[in-house]
């Protein structure tokens, strides 16, 4: 039954639609209007139910090229997950260590991890870019960025 990719995705979408619909039907009613906030979401939810059923039954018209796109070597999947991890760590530390420090570390290690071997260029870029951007945003544009552990 779940032979094709379309069918698997269709079930995921059905679950999403069901979840969305349950929340929609539980929205509190607003007494002073006939046209309440749940009107459009109800339509959207049922439309998604309908479309996922269509997706379940239509023939999989995927081309070879599209299937090929999904064929990612295991090594690259690990790389992708690692970069995602670094981004999450970046966000987590942003307001603790401050914009300049975290960004410099992130740019340096991320590009090093992805195979950029020129250490000196990398070090210069990863320090100059965040500092310039930080100055530009805080001094010229008056948009505050997290200062963190650095004194300026």
């Amino acid at each position, binding site marked *: 039954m779940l032979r094709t*990719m379309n069918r698997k*995705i269709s079930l995921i979408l059905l679950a999403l639609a069901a979840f*969305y619909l349950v*929340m929609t039907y539980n*929205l509190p009613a*607003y007494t002073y*209007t*006939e*046209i*309440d*906030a749940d009107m*459009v*979401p109800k339509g*959207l*939810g049922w439309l*998604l139910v309908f*479309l*996922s059923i269509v*997706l379940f039954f*239509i023939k999989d*018209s995927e*081309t070879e090229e*599209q299937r090929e*796109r*999904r064929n990612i070597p295991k090594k*690259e999947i690990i790389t*992708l997950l690692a*970069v*995602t991890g670094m*981004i*999450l760590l970046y*966000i*987590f530390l*942003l*307001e603790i260590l401050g*914009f300049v420090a975290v*960004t410099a570390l*992130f*740019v340096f290690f*991320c*590009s*090093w*991890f*992805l*195979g*950029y071997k*020129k250490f000196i260029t*990398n070090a210069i*870029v*990863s320090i100059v*870019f*965040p500092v310039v*951007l930080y100055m*530009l*945003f805080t001094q*010229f*544009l*008056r948009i*505050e*960025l997290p200062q963190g552990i650095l004194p300026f």
Partner: protein
Amino acid sequence: MGSIEGIMTGFQTAFSLEGIMFVMIGVLVGTFIGMLPGLGPISAIAVMIPITFGMDPSTGLIMMAGVYYGAVFGGSTSSILLNAPGISGTVATSFDGYPMAQQGKAGKALAIAAIASFTGGTVSVVLLMIMAPALASVAISFGPPAYFGLMLLGLTAIASLSEGSTTKALISAVVGFMAVTIGIDPQTGTQRFTFGNANLFEGIDFLVIALGLFAIAEVGKLIIARHDDSLSDKRNVGSLKITKEELKDMRGPMSRQSFVGFFLGVLPGAGATIASFIGYIMEKKIAKKPEEFGKGSVKGLTAPETANNAATSGAFVPLLSLGIPGSGTTAVLLGAFLVLGVQPGPLLMVERPEIFWGIIASMYLGNIVLLVLNLPLIPYISKILNIPRPLLIALVIMFSMIGVYAISFSTFDLYMLVLFGVLGFLMRLFAFPAPPFILAFILGGMLEQSFRQSLSISNGNFMIFLESPISLTLIILSVLSFIFPLLKLRKKKA
């Protein structure tokens, strides 16, 4: 007073040495700020307001027009080079601009964008001069049902933005529409799908979705492909050369979209975004080779760039003649007017003709300066693509992060950015197109509001959409433009 006399005065003000100098400063600063992550014309104008303190009002406003144009152009560069649209008006630019840049033609793509912007801007300024007073009254007669029809027409783009499966494109759009229903409903105040999380009360910011689905998802692809050197023709990245044939391709979209973009820009709330999308679809529909769209088509890049700039001038119509800002950007601009002691509205043209026409004349000037200043800069701007891949990837991630953080100041939005990045990446893998998602997200909110406002007016009677001639026409057009591509598809298969 004769308009001719006013126009002459206006041109004298704008084309003085002082006027030219301040337009140049405005365009340069605008372009620069527009290129920065997350900052569009709104922030550019807001930043420049304090600088105009104490300036002569006409000079100050002339500079602002330059900032506005510059920022719109600056936004296109990040769409084209990095697939990172910083404002919604340049999302459609990335559809063909980014593929073109990937094929080693970044300089050319930027040059086409500059020329298309110039044409759209200039033609629409002429239209603005001729029609400003008359158009203003049409724009305010656009009621909720007509807006609903307009948004619907914009949404029919979905059928033509799909690469293969229409079902998948529709699913992508429905989920995008669902995403915009998150937050406090503006009409009833009901919290929808917020899970009680205060970060979601105002809904998800456009930038989170645009940078996530486009820029961050693209980073995923770049990481996998970081070793193969598909940017083969590195030396020519900065070449501006446009061939005769390409120029011929540009002519059609430029002449049509200058007009279409202008008229859509006049409507409050519609503006540059919807103009760029409608321009894109329209050209795709009438093109002889629609299959080239999305793969680096000259026409596909020219259309939205012309339309969004034309709409930019169109947006000045309600602002100058009625004093009503039709978009976030013109609202900030209205603020700039007030700071300088100028009250836009019906009386502006009568009482301060030198300012009214000075601004319009400075828009001509702004367009010319934009072209003259930016064309020589393109080779340097497009060198961005010569940065080694691993470093570029890290910088694009940083660029997206700072863009989102600078407007929301919350790490919650950054986590959302990652979430939408992952979603965009998965959508690519499973051949769900991202453009319908963002289109539905941008138009969905306005569509829902105008739909419900109309029904509230009519006490739930759906006939209201068919009673006004404007909305009836727009709805019929939407139905036709949705059905035609499907019929064509069926014919091809049979």
